[in-house]
C-alpha cells in the first residue's frame, strides 16, 4: 500500500518523496518545444507586422498557423507558470504571501492560456472573413 503513503512517509521509509524533479523536467521539456515555437512566433510576428484585420483573420484560418499559435500560447503559459513559481518560492519568505502569489500565478497563467487558445480557435473556426 505504499501508494497511499504521505510524502513524509515515503521520505522516512524509502529515501526521496520522488516528486522533486517533476517541475524541473516539465520546465526543460516545455523549453525544448518553445525553442521552435518562439522562433516560429517571431517569423509569424514579422509576417503579420503590417497585416490589417482581414489579412490577420485569413492568416489564422490556415490550420498550420492556428495550431502552432495555440501551441505557442499553451506551452508558453505552462512554461512561464513554472518559472514564475520558482521566482516566488525564491524571494517570498512569508508563507501566506507566498501561497497567495503562487495561487495567483496559477490562476493568471491558466486564465491567459484559456482565453488565448479560445480566441485563436474562435477566429480559426469561424466561417468567412468578417
Amino acid at each position, binding site marked *: 500500500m505504499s501508494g497511499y503513503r504521505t510524502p513524509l512517509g515515503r521520505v522516512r521509509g524509502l529515501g526521496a518523496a520522488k516528486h522533486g524533479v517533476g517541475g524541473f523536467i516539465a520546465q526543460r521539456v516545455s523549453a525544448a518545444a518553445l*525553442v521552435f515555437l518562439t522562433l516560429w*512566433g517571431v517569423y509569424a510576428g*514579422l509576417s503579420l507586422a503590417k497585416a490589417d484585420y482581414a489579412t*490577420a483573420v485569413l492568416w489564422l484560418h490556415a490550420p498550420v498557423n492556428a495550431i502552432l499559435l495555440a501551441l505557442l500560447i499553451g506551452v508558453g503559459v505552462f512554461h512561464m507558470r513554472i*518559472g514564475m513559481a520558482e521566482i516566488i518560492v525564491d524571494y517570498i*519568505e512569508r*508563507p501566506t504571501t507566498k501561497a497567495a502569489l503562487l495561487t495567483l500565478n496559477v490562476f493568471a497563467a491558466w486564465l*491567459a492560456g484559456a*482565453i488565448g487558445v479560445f480566441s485563436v480557435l474562435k477566429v480559426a473556426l469561424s466561417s468567412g472573413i468578417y
Partner: protein
Amino acid sequence: MSEAPIGAAAPKPAARPMSPYVSVWRWHLTMAVSIGHRATGVALYVGALILVGWAVSLAAGPGAYDLFRLILGSILGKLVLIGITFSLFFHLANGVRHLVWDFGAGFQPKTADMTAVAVVAFAVVATLAVWVAAGMMGALA
C-alpha cells in the same frame, strides 16, 4: 519542536554571519546573465499576455484589432515590443545554454564566460536583425 504560527515569517537569528549574497559579490558576467535570465523571463510573462491580447482583439473584431495595433504601433508600444524581442532571444539563447548545462557540459569558468558573451551577442544581433527586417518591410512607418 515548536511550529511557527501560520502566516508568520520564519524566525531569524540576529546578526549571525550569513551565506554570501548579491551584495557581497563583485559583479561578473555569468552572474549578470543569470539575473538577466530571470528578468527576461518576467518580461516574457508580460509578452505572453500581450500575445494573448492580440488573439483576443482579433477574436473581438475589426475595431478592437485596429485599436490594439494602434497601441502596439505607438512609440511606447514599439519600445515594449523591442524589449520583448530582446528578452525572447536572450531567454532563448540562455535557455539553450542551461539545457547544455543539464547534460553536464560547459561548466568550466572560461567556457561559461564565453557562452555568456555569446548569449548577449546573439540577443543583440537577432533583435537588431528582426527590427531592421521589419523596417525594410515598411512595418515601422
